[in-house]
């Protein structure tokens, strides 16, 4: 098997931008650490760029099943009290969330 380690430190990842897209807030030391580690990993997966797969169709799932349907019937669902039982901020059976449009 080909040498698996590429050790390519590629500073091609804008780690702050990716963290924002990921809905993660990183501390300063984490930013440096993850930039290096993700650089290594992204460097490694470049190996795929050496294979020509232009004529190969993609596979998104392996079951071979298509258009799986179920009969549209009423079924019991979680009662509201149980569905909201784990929320940290619940009022009158609803989840409380921060405003979305404020400050836009």
């Amino acid at each position, binding site marked *: 098997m080909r040498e698996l380690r590429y050790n390519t430190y590629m500073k091609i990842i804008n780690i702050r931008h990716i963290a924002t897209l990921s809905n*993660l807030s990183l501390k300063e030391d984490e930013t440096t650490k993850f930039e290096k580690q993700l650089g290594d*990993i992204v460097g490694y997966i470049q190996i795929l760029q050496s294979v020509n797969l232009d004529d190969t169709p993609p596979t998104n799932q392996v079951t071979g099943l298509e258009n799986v349907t179920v009969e549209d019937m009423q079924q019991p669902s979680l009662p509201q009290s149980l569905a909201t*039982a784990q929320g940290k901020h619940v009022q009158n059976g609803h989840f409380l969330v921060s405003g979305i449009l404020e400050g836009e």
Partner: protein
Amino acid sequence: MIDLTQLTLSTARDMLYKKEVSARELTRAYLNRIQTHNPRLNAYLTVTEEAAYAAADAADKRIATGETTPLLGIPVGLKDMYMTAGVRTTAASRVLADYTAQYDATVVTRLKDAGAVILGKLNCDAWAHGSSGENSDFGPTKNPWNTELIPGGSSSGSAVAIGADLALAAGGTDTGGSIRLPAGYTNTVGLKPTYGRVSRYGIIAMASSLDSIGHFTKTVTDNALYLQVTAGKDPADATTSPADVPDYLALIGQPITGMKIGVPKEYFSGGLDPRIETVVRDALKTYERLGAELVEISLPYTEYAIACYYILQPAEVSSNLARYTGIRYGNDRALFGDEAKRRIMIGTYVLSSGYYDAYYKKATRLRTKVIEDFTKAFAQVDVILTPTSPKMPWKIGEGMDDPLAVYLSDVFTVTANIAGIPGLALPAGFVDGLPVGMQLLGPQLSEQKLYQVGYAFEEATQFWRQKPSI
């Protein structure tokens, strides 16, 4: 007085039916052993003693009426990725540290209906991300063969529960090797079933096109008994196979004369520890003595499989973990551990605008090639035999600073997940007193045949009888 925790599932079952032991006695023996050894091994995160005794008593009543379902009265543990109604379910992450599941996973419902006794919830790498067990937010699970070493992961607690006789069977999940790797390091039998053979409903999702819901047992026959309960179509999981569930015991004990076993040359070169190679080559010789024919095969896209896997899997992880916002349940995203953060960010990166075609799309095309490799191979051979890991277990802590090195230890296992085929890991032998694992791979829905071929080796070698001294 025999030690009830040393029984196999099959033997315990016989004794239960003959009323030589009660489910309550069996359950008590396991709970006592957990109490003694779990503080050191850290396999169980939650023990549900009261519910276990209630289930045991209910099983004893059913046994008294002559009922003989496969897991009736059998004590099992479940990876903490399984939703268990009313029981804390954490995915071994601080994000879900105080989360109580609101419903049962389909597999859990099936186990309960079959009369299994659930002892508790088992440790793992947080969100099933890892190959070692080191990524648990609640401390690593220790390998009973040497508590300084990793037991393999991500289903670390499930493997150790069986390897150290803390349950008769244990549920796990396998997205890239998370059952087969730790089975190999703990001298246990682990099945990654065909994708879609066992329902994923209510199992905390890691990478939805790869997640396979399997289990660990002490022996091959025990493993088949458990699959008999968990396999089957589930209306709540549209990816489950409509194919009939066969009798998984039917071929066990049948001779394997003339069976063709494929030996992929790509798995026996480069980074494979020579000591592991020796053990697995010996296993191949055993198979020859049993009448099987060895056929060298090639799976040329193997060298790209890890790269393919570490694109597709984090992409799906980033999507599945987006739901953890701390609003409906669980804690803030700031509590994700390093490995979850890494995977979320890699997945976000490969799916982001400008990179999607180069990474994600390319990996889905490579997936087609890996599938074609296996299709060609299975036109020539019945099953394929490979090691479960290229290296021996490392010291706990050593894997923490170099995530890429740890990713590469999945090299032999990820291909089965990419192709959706089943893999049965079983004890292959020993190196310096530590167990070594091998896996049998077959075409989709070939679990019956894997059990037949696995059993022949187990019967001839009896490696499973060797136990760690804990």
